[in-house]
């Protein structure tokens, strides 16, 4: 299985390349990719530098153009595709059908992957993109159990990539509008969930309150650590109980089931976190390289090592991890 690592900037890209990534993925500095954050991503010069560095070390580079253009922005997405095609990248990661149609027509030699934002959870859905746009890989949403991943892997017309580690979307990607409902901006339209410009933190007599466009996402008492107010990871009231009604602040970690993922034919493991620091990328790439090598060498006796898990916990959201939907009881 290949290791696909996030590169939010050049230092992160180098950290991934130096620590065992087989491929890195990155985006341009605008809303054409799903990590459209201030100070993140690549301008032309940095992109060229990064691609050269990766290629010199035998590492592939994928460009994510995985948001959904509306007519007023269409030109920007088309230019992003053309721009990426001119950069000698190894694949584009696309979500929108229109963008994919354009890319496959204009750059027929360019390898296309279907982004997790494309929301394809079955072989039939993947078939749609495979027949029309000859995609070469699909990234599966984080909603399938291990058994369901196996079913898709067995019947999919193209190899599959799954998320192995990082921040966890509890909703099926590409079809979640919670963020735009509250802030006007969503991953699909703007490339960000719960965007920073809508966030406020206020010390109050009731505790530290985190808000998103004035909606109270959570309130933290003394001694409670307050995470970023991603709106599905707050505490809310349901039936007179206050709890994490949708999801706890937690990260996905599939290290425990690597041999199973390998056995069902997963082609690549993706690490989330283009918005994270180069130190995160370095740490996570290193640990996952070791795990993947160990799993490949001897899947029967593979066991995640305690120091790997400890290292990952340290960089996890809420300092905890879950197998998420792969593990049926989580659902």
């Amino acid at each position, binding site marked *: 299985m290949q290791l696909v690592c996030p590169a939010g900037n050049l230092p992160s890209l180098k950290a991934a390349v130096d620590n065992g990534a087989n491929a890195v993925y990155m985006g341009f500095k605008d809303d054409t990719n799903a990590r459209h954050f201030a100070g993140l991503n690549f301008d032309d010069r940095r992109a060229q530098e990064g691609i050269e560095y990766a290629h010199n070390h035998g590492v592939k580079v994928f460009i994510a153009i995985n948001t959904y253009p509306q007519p007023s922005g269409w030109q920007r997405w088309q230019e992003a595709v053309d721009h990426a095609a001119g950069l000698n990248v190894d694949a584009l990661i696309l979500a929108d059908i229109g963008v994919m149609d354009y890319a496959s027509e204009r750059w027929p030699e360019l390898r296309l992957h279907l982004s997790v934002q494309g929301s394809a959870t079955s072989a*039939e859905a993947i078939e749609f*993109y495979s027949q029309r746009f000859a995609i070469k890989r699909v990234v599966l949403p984080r909603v399938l159990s291990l058994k369901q991943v196996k079913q898709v892997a067995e019947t999919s017309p193209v190899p599959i990539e799954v998320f192995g580690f990082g921040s966890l979307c509890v909703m099926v990607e590409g*079809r979640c509008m919670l963020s735009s409902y509250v802030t006007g901006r969503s991953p699909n339209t703007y490339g960000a969930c719960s965007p920073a410009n809508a966030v406020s933190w206020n010390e109050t007599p009731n505790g530290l309150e985190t808000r998103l466009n004035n909606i109270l996402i959570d309130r933290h008492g003394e001694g409670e650590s307050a995470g970023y107010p991603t709106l599905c990871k707050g505490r809310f009231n349901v039936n007179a109980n206050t709890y994490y009604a949708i999801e706890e602040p937690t990260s996905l970690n599939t290290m425990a089931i690597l041999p199973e993922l390998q056995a069902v034919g997963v082609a690549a493991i993706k690490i989330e976190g283009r918005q994270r620091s180069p130190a995160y990328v370095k740490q996570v790439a290193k640990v996952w390289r070791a795990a993947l090598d160990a799993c490949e060498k001897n899947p029967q006796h593979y066991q995640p090592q305690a120091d790997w898990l400890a290292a990952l916990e340290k960089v996890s959201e809420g300092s905890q991890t879950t197998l998420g939907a792969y593990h049926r009881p989580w659902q």
Partner: protein
Amino acid sequence: MTQTIKSLPKLSLGPVLYYWPREQIFDFYRTIAQTPVDVVYLGETVCAKRRLMKPDDWLQVARILTEAGKEVVLSTLTLLEANSELSSLRKICNNSQYMVEANDMAAVQIVSARQSSDNKGFVTGPAVNIYNSRTLEVLAKAGLKRWALPVELSLETLTELHQNRPAGLETEVFVFGRLPLAYSARCFTARAHNLPKDDCQFRCLDYPDGLLLSTREDESFLVLNGIQTQSAKTQNLLTELNNLIELDIDVLRISPQSTHTDKIIAVFNDCLHGKQAIDEAEKWLQHYILTGECDGYWHNQPGMDKTVIDKTIMDAALNTK
């Protein structure tokens, strides 16, 4: 200068998004058969475990509605995971009698691959991501006959897409109801009852309009409906009716709720046909709205926002009543 006479939009009733007992579903659609709604979407689109209505029951409802002169469309599941869900999907997609509303790309692929000569094409629901004209063109080539605007898109984007749509393609807009916002592998209703999804005890049956989620300041925020999350506020575009007519939108979708759906249809129908003034009807509609209303998406604002209507105009309308 010639003036084009625009035909009025048809009214549609979206699929029931909640889990209601079989008898309630039958009663509901017997009532709907008597309303002036033109198109009715039928079937389970949220959770495959909701099986009180068997496939034959849905077909029976379809017959009742067809006999009442309604156009029936069979809706498919939005988030597909298990193999069993895909076999049900194939059955719906391969039916030869009714048009299909595809709510996922798997359904689009199956209906577009049908070879039969009676292929009616398909409709896409609001959860199929159509954000630009090129996407519409690809899907039109695959057999798309009608598309529903994704709920997070605005009047501005709708206008561009509708005016440049492929010939013969109909456009549908979600004009009334709690907005479907997200889908998950996890069941939030089961979670609220500390139950695993595999043993959910069908708690959705307890919540005919979903389970309200509020902030810690007791502000109504979202609605948990099994694996689906909805807005607590009802999107209401009644005041945009003239814009929708002017734009020549083909179908206006009302989303079912457990009470007053027939009255809501009547309000929209009366306003469409000029039997009731919109600002006056808007006041009536307030009685049927569950926890506040919103129209932010339409104005390219946060979906939960509500455009403030000049109160003096509203008051004047009421005083003339």
